[in-house]
């Protein structure tokens, strides 16, 4: 008997032709102690596409994302049931380090480390075993270029990352995630703490990630969802439990939703 992918454990989800893995969840749900954040969800987020998660506050969008890189494990009362697959690999079977290297994350509030701009990128690389200086410098330059920050910061790489503007900080955080060469990117309202102009810049960056990364993005900005997403998942709170109400192509969700709740939400009506 032969195994088609001999290095399954190291590179669980990479495929031969380099398309990023699809994210599939089966009966996935999460609760904090007794409080159920979201009820079992089945969904398939195609590789290389952008899927937007929308819904009112408290419907479990952040909780849902945190299951996909097992960040919920930082919160002691959080319990997950169900499975998450990257292609065919159950993430519960993966060690945390490679999983989180493969599934990057961007948070609502830009959270650069209180280090220099350079060290914000170099420190995670070193921690992941990349020690060669010139290699590190190359990665830093290319990722900063990818997020359009290189020309702005190349003369002050030693300056504190916290001296950057909010929008620049968020792009630095994106660069920090991209430097580790992830295949999936989770973004939790990445633009909501930014001014409109920076928000636009970050949004344009996200669009450019399409094809290279599988992106799941939470957003309260329906316009943003309709502009950038291929699929939209609509969450809603029913009986104090978050539910995935409808999941479909952006076109369908915004122009032809099947569920009256979805219709009401995308039309901007309440309840």
């Amino acid at each position: 008997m032969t195994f088609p992918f001999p290095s399954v454990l190291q590179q669980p989800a990479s495929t031969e032709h380099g398309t990023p893995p699809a994210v599939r969840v089966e009966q996935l749900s999460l609760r904090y102690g007794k409080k159920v954040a979201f009820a079992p969800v089945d969904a398939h987020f195609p590789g290389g596409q952008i899927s937007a998660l929308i819904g009112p506050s408290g419907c479990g969008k952040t909780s849902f994302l945190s299951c996909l890189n097992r960040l919920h494990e930082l919160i002691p009362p959080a319990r997950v049931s169900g499975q998450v697959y990257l292609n065919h690999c159950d993430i519960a079977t993966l060690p945390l380090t490679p999983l989180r290297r493969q599934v990057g994350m961007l948070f609502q509030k830009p959270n650069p480390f209180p280090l220099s701009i350079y060290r914000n990128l170099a420190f995670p690389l070193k921690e992941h075993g990349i020690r060669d200086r010139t290699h590190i410098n190359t990665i830093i330059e290319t990722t900063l270029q990818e997020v359009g920050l290189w020309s702005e910061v190349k003369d002050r790489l030693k300056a504190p990352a916290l001296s950057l503007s909010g929008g620049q900080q968020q792009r630095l955080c994106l660069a920090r995630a991209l430097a580790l060469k992830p295949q999936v990117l989770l973004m939790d309202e990445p633009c909501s703490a930014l001014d409109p102009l920076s928000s636009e810049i970050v949004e344009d960056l996200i669009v450019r990630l399409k094809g290279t990364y599988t992106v799941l993005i939470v957003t309260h900005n329906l316009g943003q969802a309709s502009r950038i997403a291929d699929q939209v998942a609509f969450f809603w709170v029913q009986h104090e439990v978050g539910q995935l109400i409808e999941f479909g192509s952006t076109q369908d969700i915004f122009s032809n939703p099947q569920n009256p709740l979805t219709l009401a939400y995308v039309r901007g009506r309440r309840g």
Partner: protein
Amino acid sequence: MAPWISLLPAQRHRFSAKESLATAVVWGVALGITAIFAALLGDVVWQGGRQVNWVFLTQAPQRAGLEGGIAPIVVSTGLVLMVCMGVSLPLGLGTAVFLSELSRQHPFWSRTIRLSLDILAGVPSVVFGLFGNAFFCKGLGLGFSILSGGLTLACMVLPILIRSIQVGLSGVPPEYRQASAALGLSRLGALGTLIVPAAMPGIVVGILLGIGRAIAETAALIFTSGYVDRMPASLLDSGRVLSIHIFDLAMNVPGGEAPAYATAFVLVALLVIINSLVSGWAKRFQQSKIQVL
């Protein structure tokens, strides 16, 4: 005119009566405490500072401290402090890191450690002295020595040290941990590069409180490092520390009040110097590690 505008002056009036009372109380308390502190310090500086000179700092005491100086006593104090902090700092840092980072995985152990630290923090120093005498001097055979005294003090300052370091660690913004976890970074890497440097202010408070308590300690050292006022030749020699010297001069030596004041002045000055050195070092350490602006 909107109705709420007419409400404002009356409200402001009510607030201001209460507020000025509160302001007066706060100022009164602050000034009162400052005054007490200033009177104490002024007394020590006035009565002690005048007698401190080069001879006093560089000679050994003679006639039970009535003449000569306090050089060996300063050296013994420094050595006791060094042993104390050298042992308690790594232990304290390790325990605090355990309590703040691993308590979730080991709730039983962290609760046990926390409880015993709280109990230890309330134990009078005489009891530490008796314990140190039984365990370090007799049990481990270290005798009356600077080493025994330093180790006893280390046990004594550990609770304060651990508590303050732990408070410092838990004050580190949770975003740092979240961000480093999301990048798949090792706990240890995040600790050394981000968390501990960011917790430096708390760690400094712990060190300073610890040093303050250790340098002021008398009872625990009488039983462990002893009275001998000769210059110590090694850590296994007995050595008299400043606080014991003050105690001895004031209580047992007729006419010893003047040198006692002088010694107290040196003790306070030493504390100030150590504090500024530690704070300066900590600031530089933090800046070399992280850049918070």
